[in-house]
């Protein structure tokens, strides 16, 4: 009887240790392995945020930061690198004021290196924040998408 109780206690302790270890070493979400919520044109996504930011935040952003994974279709308007060395591709039509800024990762950077301004591409990534023209701050803010990669 006593050994049975000890075995149960040992199993419980191991379970707790396993759960804590899982939480501690929990991997970051693999964006490219996550099914895309939607495929959407860059201009259409920008316009959704400009029309109703609150509604768009509710739809696309997640409480724990695990926001929607999207495939953005659009025209390459600019190519740059951020301070971490990640490629940043802005998808925007010439007539639009704002677009979708897609940041690649150090691992997926090479996919963006062959792109040219004017190319049509589909880019998959996780949305971080929406488009906004802040008149008070005189800031034009693109939609921010990160962990990007090119998809067919």
């Amino acid at each position, binding site marked *: 009887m006593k050994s049975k109780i000890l075995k149960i206690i040992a199993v419980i302790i191991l379970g707790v240790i396993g759960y804590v270890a899982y939480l501690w070493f929990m991997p970051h979400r693999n964006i490219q392995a996550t099914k895309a919520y939607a495929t959407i044109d860059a201009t259409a996504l920008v316009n959704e945020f400009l029309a109703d930011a609150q509604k768009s935040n509710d739809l696309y952003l997640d409480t724990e930061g695990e926001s929607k994974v999207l495939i953005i279709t659009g025209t390459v308007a600019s190519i740059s690198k951020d301070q971490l060395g990640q490629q940043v591709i802005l998808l925007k039509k010439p007539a639009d004021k704002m677009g979708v*800024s897609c940041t690649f990762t150090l691992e997926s950077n090479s996919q963006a290196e062959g792109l040219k301004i004017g190319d049509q591409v589909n880019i998959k990534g996780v949305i971080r924040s929406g488009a906004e023209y802040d008149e008070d701050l005189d800031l034009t803010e693109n939609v921010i998408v990160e962990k990007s990669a090119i998809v067919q």
Partner: protein
Amino acid sequence: MKNLVVLLFAFISISAFSQTKLSTTSSHIKFFSSTPAEDIEANNYKAIGVIKPDIGSIVFSIPMQSFEFEKALMQKHFNTEKFLHTKAFPKSKFKGTITNITSIDFDKDGTYVADVTGFLTIRGVTKEISEKFNIVVKDGTVTGTTEFPIVLADYGIAFKEGKPSTNLAKTIKVTAKFNFTKISA
């Protein structure tokens, strides 16, 4: 006639200067928390900002879900309602003024210390802050750096019990670096 030409040239120069602004999409903001239990660091490369030298204004916008942590669980906690509530408040903003703007020449190589006063909004709470912003102008490029503390309770972030109360510092250190590009409007 000669005076007229000089006046016209001066007017054009002033107009050109007044329409120039400095814009940045190349940024790195880091926050660092240190307690006996652990050190926590998060990095964000997606902030944007604008300086208007003619009026001395300086503004930044920071997408909060772009802060990345080494540990996935910490990143999740950071975004939740109890902490930054990033779904409801996806951006933090700073709107301020460089009070000594006349002592900074963005066209001349040099190191300048800007006195910045303004309003920082985090998690929907706005506080007035005054900090130094170090500006380096070199070979036509403009870089700005700063470092300052943030008291989390000032922005409604406080934990009285549980792991965050022991593992997260009450005051965190923020460092930021921005590479600016000159834009003629």
